């Protein structure tokens, strides 16, 4: 990497003004509470989501153990309901989405050549709101019973009449708080990607991960209001006796299903599009070829997002919406297989005739493609209403969703961790453990979920705490349970790999994979300010273009001196003042000060929700008291935030 940088000192640069993240006085817990650095917030998201992932996995293990044999009594039916509800809610909202946010936070600013996200404090606010919402949701296990109506929470099971306990309140308010976090995050990354790109980084040069993230943000912005309203109506029904889902008063529970799935189906693409973006970054790098059909990849991502809003009722074929609605939604659902298929062929096309190196990230990426194809094919099967009526609410659907979400999202996210871990930590993950991790993961994943296709078609309904021996699915269930234990073992290998590599892993170079995108042009881990100088982008795969212009059939490019040299010693920079060689006017890199106001705002939001939660045990008066307390915190936080010098 000869291209790295004229040292900053040659440019007459200087550094002013601590405090900084590397400052020893600025490393404690408080520094993490007040951090506004996108890299630190990314790590916070990763660690929290990892913990929730383990929690959700343990819930799944208990579910599998309960289903080990017919008429098992390991857990009660009530507990089983809570377990599958919390398993799904945790995995979707507290594990996969925030794992995506870890990468959005850490990688997007680096890939677009920015020094931070557009709104660093809003970013901190998203994280704190997310973590408080997640904790609130899980406290339900200790405070009066976890939610038990499924992650989809169908009305009118969720109304006060049929779910009198506080479980649904925790679920509803927890999701509402998480929704605020998602909305704030989506706004932030939308603006970041649209507005903070380095010079020359046009949209059609944007790294494909950023493209898929941008589309995800648009989905989040447009899909979340629907569930927000659905949950608000539910909240009003439960606390203020409105009639939205109350059948005796003319309310229609199907309204909830529409509101939920208008959000719920785009949500599926919110979970998978970032995964597709990660895989689209990894496959070219390990095939030593630019992504095949970049533009078509972008367009198909947009097409998926567009169609995502027109397929929601395929979750509701069993409702009986009538032949016309069923036909329309079946067609649009099958149509969405086209852009998805295009993506799969493009990944294969990228590998075709490439010199493929099967390092762990690539193994997981290829594993993603193969498992996602299986999940996609079963998806097309129940896009057809007659087939769906047979498969509906059976383990066949459970198999499908896990092939898409574990075989799809989780495998891609693991690929992303193996790929970007060197950049984030400065150390490589162990390759041998990584390969063990991959093979145990993909084998036990299939052992767990492949049999569920048969379990389902043989008629075992999902979300039922046990089954009879006469159904003839005992062996299949036992295979699944064994697989689940194996899968847990594989995740354990991953955790061991992360912790040992953090301490003993091989030191990573700045660019260990000969990467294509700008994050590999700066030190591992990156300095606080990311880029000493903002790079100028001349091509797609910007960093490849700078390193190997001849390979991309480009004219030789004069690379922007990025970081390196004395930049390392300025990692402590809070504010970096630099001058370009030919420029005598100093430009200023301004960094926002650490701030606790985002945390105050998040705490205010959570306080309001807690008042509603406590009203069951401590009476109605907690609602106004906590609402006022929370509002004071929130409004105080917003004003403190606004008047704080950014």
């Amino acid at each position: 990497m000869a291209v790295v940088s004229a040292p900053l000192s040659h440019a007459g640069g200087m550094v002013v003004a601590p405090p900084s993240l590397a400052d020893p006085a600025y490393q404690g817990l408080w520094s993490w509470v007040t951090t506004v650095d996108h890299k630190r917030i990314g790590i916070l998201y990763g660690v929290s989501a990892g913990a929730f992932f383990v929690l959700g996995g343990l819930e799944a293990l208990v579910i599998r153990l309960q289903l080990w044999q017919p008429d098992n009594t390991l857990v009660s039916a009530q507990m089983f309901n809570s377990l599958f509800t919390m398993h799904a809610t945790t995995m979707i909202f507290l594990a996969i989405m925030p794992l995506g946010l870890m990468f959005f936070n850490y990688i997007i600013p680096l890939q677009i050549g920015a020094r931070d996200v557009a709104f660093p404090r809003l970013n901190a606010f998203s994280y704190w709101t997310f973590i408080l919402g997640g904790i609130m949701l899980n406290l339900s296990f200790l405070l009066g019973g976890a939610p038990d109506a499924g992650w989809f929470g169908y009305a009118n099971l969720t109304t006060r009449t049929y779910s009198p306990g506080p479980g649904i309140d925790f679920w509803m308010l927890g999701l509402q708080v998480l929704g605020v976090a998602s909305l704030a995050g989506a706004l932030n990354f939308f603006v970041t990607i649209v507005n903070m790109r380095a010079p020359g980084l046009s949209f059609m040069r944007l790294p494909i991960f950023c493209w898929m993230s941008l589309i995800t943000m648009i989905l989040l912005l447009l899909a979340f209001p629907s569930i927000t309203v659905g949950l608000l109506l539910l909240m009003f029904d439960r606390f203020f006796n409105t009639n939205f889902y109350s059948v005796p008063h003319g309310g229609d529970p199907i309204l909830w299903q529409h509101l939920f799935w208008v959000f719920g189906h785009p949500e599926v693409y919110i979970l998978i599009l970032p995964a597709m973006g990660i895989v689209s970054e990894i496959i070219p790098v390990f095939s030593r070829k630019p992504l095949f059909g970049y533009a078509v990849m972008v367009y198909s991502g947009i097409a998926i997002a567009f169609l995502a809003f027109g397929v929601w009722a395929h979750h509701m074929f069993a409702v009986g919406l009538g032949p016309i609605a069923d036909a329309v939604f079946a067609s649009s659902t099958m149509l969405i297989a086209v852009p998805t298929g295009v993506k799969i062929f493009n990944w294969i096309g990228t590998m075709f005739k490439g010199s493929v190196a099967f390092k762990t990230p690539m193994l997981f990426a290829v594993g993603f493609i193969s498992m996602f194809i299986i999940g996609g094919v079963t998806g097309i099967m129940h896009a057809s209403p007659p087939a769906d009526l047979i498969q509906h609410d059976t383990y066949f659907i459970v198999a499908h969703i896990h092939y898409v979400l574990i075989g799809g999202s989780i495998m891609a996210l693991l690929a992303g961790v193996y790929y970007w871990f060197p950049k984030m930590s400065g150390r490589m993950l162990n390759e041998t453990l990584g390969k063990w991790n991959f093979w145990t993961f993909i084998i036990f994943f299939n052992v767990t979920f492949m049999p569920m296709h048969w379990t389902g078609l043989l008629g075992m309904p999902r979300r039922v705490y046990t089954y009879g021996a006469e159904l003839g699915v005992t062996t299949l269930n036992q295979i699944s349970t064994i697989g689940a234990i194996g899968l847990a073992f594989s995740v354990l290998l991953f955790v061991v790999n992360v912790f040992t590599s953090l301490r003993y892993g091989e030191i990573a170079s700045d660019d260990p994979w000969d990467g294509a995108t700008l994050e590999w042009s700066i030190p591992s881990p990156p300095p606080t300010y990311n880029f000493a100088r903002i790079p100028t982008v001349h091509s797609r795969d910007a960093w490849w273009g700078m390193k190997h212009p001849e390979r991309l059939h480009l004219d030789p490019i004069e690379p922007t001196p990025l970081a390196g040299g004395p930049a390392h010693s300025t990692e402590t920079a809070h504010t970096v003042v630099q001058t370009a060689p030919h420029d005598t006017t100093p430009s200023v890199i301004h960094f926002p000060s650490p701030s606790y106001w985002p945390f105050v705002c998040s705490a205010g939001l959570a306080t309001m929700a807690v008042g509603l939660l406590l009203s069951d045990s401590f009476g109605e008066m907690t609602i106004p008291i906590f609402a006022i307390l929370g509002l004071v915190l929130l409004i105080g936080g917003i004003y403190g935030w606004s008047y704080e010098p950014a």
Partner: protein
Amino acid sequence: MTHTAVPVIVDSGAAPPALEAPLELEHPHTSTGQDNRKLLMWAFLASDCMFFGTLIATYMVYKNRSLTGPYPREIFDVPYTSVSAFVLLLSSLTMVLALSSIQRGEERKLRIWLGATALLGCVFLAGQFYEFTTFYREGLTLSTNLFGSTFFTLTGFHGTHVFIGVFWLASLVVHSFRGKLHREHSLLVEIAGLYWHFVDIVWILIFTLVYLIPD
């Protein structure tokens, strides 16, 4: 948490570059040329469109499906609500005048027009409060029937938006009185204006769909 900037010269080179260089550029360079905050507001409004779209759709789905009275025709006072709708629409005009004042650097006029906008918003809110209490006295509550539930929820959330807007405008007026809102900060007024106009437009939709179109 603010930190006083203690200059620490790591690499002296020549004379230290001018420390009086502005620490924050008012309009940092962006890819689209639009300010980040303005883009954020547009994106938020797109999301808010879906929010009100969903609420309005809920109202429309449940229209004429109440099992008991009071029904909309019995209690709506369309001329009364037309006046308050007109007041809210008028506030969009004063908002535009406020923005044009700050863009021309006329700070006294800015305060007058911002204050007028907030005041008109308050009049609208007072009108809504009076309407709600009247309906309540005539027997319509959140839980009476589907009309009550959907009507109060939809118009209540719109009212909450207006309330937040009034708060925001009042804060800007205070900001201006403290001498901190000048010509170069016109973007702050522009963004508040975007929000305010959006809330107005939503009311046009609600007023038409809820009050004007007969059952």
